[in-house]
């Protein structure tokens, strides 16, 4: 049976034909390739390499970027791609988010012409995989105090430090690494063969199991001078990247929620208890109704934000709101869906707990729920409440 997504307020009618065709192409790919294989990939803790190849061939990596072989799609189209990928699994969408928004985007916006021509076409094709090194073992919500540093050695830079929680790290051909050069945060392109660089995989995860999560370790890592991203200094660099990824996540979370909703609805209609389907009982209907309400609100939030991204009128605080709200509602929906599925909900026969576990990571990465909350708080009051110091 082809997948039918909940679309109560008919957001579909607001899409262009092109956006719908792109969404449908990704939707079909997820149905045929991700859904039948994701539970095994999750159990084996592997990101199937074929998916990298397929996503490259589909042309969806770095979707909104213009030029250098990239399609320059609307942000609505990018959002739809994220929605469909995450309906399959948050780990698949993470691969695409990191590749497009966190690795390709900084080269596109802050790189030299040579860097753009050298890296972007191959990254769009899925041939070279990128990752984004900002977070450190001791610096997550506070990236500004990072200790990974770069020293100018005349004919090369020397990097020392470590990054943690880096999606794609171990399989990446290149890493966009943010490090302090003379106390100022700059972006550097580190390639996997550069001496002094290793990217061991982090194992033992209960979440995003079908995604590669790594440490990036720099021990006197030498990189050529032409690897610095010339176009940006300070946190503005990484934050620009994160804004794009966060936008994609606001759509992705809707996809995960839609998947959980569909499963819960189907289960409730089939599961007979006390001679009637549980969908006929009021408490179950209450839960399904709440899910529909939140998914609908989340869809409209993401769609309108996409329009603002496309016409340039967006603000980072608006992105914070969408990311925070949609991930929150998706996680709550996953939990509620597990409840509706009863004991069956704990089996990987159903996607529920996989989505639930994944969304715990999605709630924390790309800016934790609480941080986005405080971003909104600062917007409302003008007073930052992140730190004790003013």
């Amino acid at each position, binding site marked *: 049976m082809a997948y039918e997504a909940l679309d109560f307020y008919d957001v579909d009618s607001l899409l262009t034909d092109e956006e719908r065709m792109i969404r449908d192409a990704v939707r079909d790919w997820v149905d045929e390739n991700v859904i039948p294989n994701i539970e095994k990939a999750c159990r084996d803790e592997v990101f199937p390499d074929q998916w990298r190849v397929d996503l490259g061939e*589909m042309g969806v990596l770095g979707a909104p970027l213009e030029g250098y072989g990239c399609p320059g799609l609307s942000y609505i189209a990018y959002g739809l791609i994220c929605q469909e990928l995450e309906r399959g699994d948050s780990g698949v969408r993470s691969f695409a988010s990191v590749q497009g928004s966190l690795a390709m985007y900084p080269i596109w916006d802050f790189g030299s012409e040579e860097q753009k021509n050298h890296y972007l076409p191959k990254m769009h094709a899925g041939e070279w995989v990128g990752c984004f090194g900002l977070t450190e073992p001791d610096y997550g919500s506070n990236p500004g105090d990072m200790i990974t540093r770069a020293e100018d050695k005349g004919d090369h830079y020397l990097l020392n430090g470590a990054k943690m929680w880096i999606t794609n790290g171990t399989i990446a051909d290149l890493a966009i690494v943010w490090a302090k050069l003379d106390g100022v945060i700059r972006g550097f392109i580190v390639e996997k063969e550069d001496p002094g660089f290793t990217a061991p995989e982090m194992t033992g995860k209960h979440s995003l199991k079908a995604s590669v999560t790594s440490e990036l370790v720099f021990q006197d890592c030498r990189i050529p001078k032409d690897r610095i991203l010339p176009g940006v200094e300070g946190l503005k660099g990484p934050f620009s990247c994160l804004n794009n990824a966060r936008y994609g996540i606001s759509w992705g979370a809707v996809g995960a929620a839609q998947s959980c909703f569909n499963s819960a609805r189907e289960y409730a209609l089939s599961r007979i208890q006390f001679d009637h389907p549980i969908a006929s009982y009021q408490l179950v209907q209450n839960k399904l109704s709440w899910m529909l309400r939140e998914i609908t609100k989340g869809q409209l939030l993401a769609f309108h934000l996409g329009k603002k991204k496309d016409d340039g009128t967006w603000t980072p605080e608006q992105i914070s709101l969408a990311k925070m709200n949609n991930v929150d509602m998706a996680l709550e929906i996953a939990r509620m869906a597990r409840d509706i599925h009863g004991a069956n909900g704990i089996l990987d026969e159903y996607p529920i707990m996989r989505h639930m576990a994944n969304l715990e990571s999605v709630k924390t990465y790309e800016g934790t729920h609480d941080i986005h909350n405080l971003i909104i708080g600062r917007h409302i009051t003008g007073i930052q409440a992140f730190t004790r110091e003013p």
Partner: protein
Amino acid sequence: MGIAVLLKQVPDTTAKITVSGGRVDEAAVSKWSFSPYDEYALESALQIKEAGGGDLIAVTCGPARAAKMLTDAAAVGADALVHILVDDLGALDTTQVQAILAAAVKHIGADVVFCGKQAADTNAGSTGPGVAHLLDASCVTMVSEVAADGDSFTAIRASAGGNERVAVSSPCVFAFDKGTTELRRPNVRGIMMAKKKIIETMTPADLGVDTGSSSVSIDTHSPPPEKPPGQKFEGAESVATVVGKLRDEANVI
């Protein structure tokens, strides 16, 4: 070489079909798609074109909504798109539909026609053979594969004992059953380029076909008869009864 692919837009095979006022309610159809056998025909035609060159022209006869299907064909590689606008295909009989399609193929100047063996709405199978006759072309049906062989073609089609390889020259029509390859997925580049493709739209009158006076008129559509409630039987002796019911009540064997 010009390859014409005849495509029909039908309700997606997973879509619910409802009857309202004695007619299937098209407005209630949630999703429209290529007729499934047409997809195999399109994929095979794309492979022939990629191997040997030529232009692939996607043709459809149907209402305005069918234009979207032509764009989908462009997204996977159709070079040109032709839409013969007919608001109500149900009001035409096979002689009229075939005349329209044959005239369109002649207008395009194609030597080879690919189509599905039968459309998923009518489940008939008249178009391929009928259009072949009107074009004075050979016809091979129940095809699963086609390959170019110099100026001719070989095809694999179903036979009583399994499959057989046949040879045929153009002009010819291939009517596809389930093919060996599924229709390729469009990628972003294909979708973006498809946006720019102009659809050549025409009416049956433009092709010299009169659509009045059909010899077949639809009286009514109705939903399938209600299934009787589930019946339970004891013991293996009841197998005979059940088999009889499967044949006579359910008509599934």
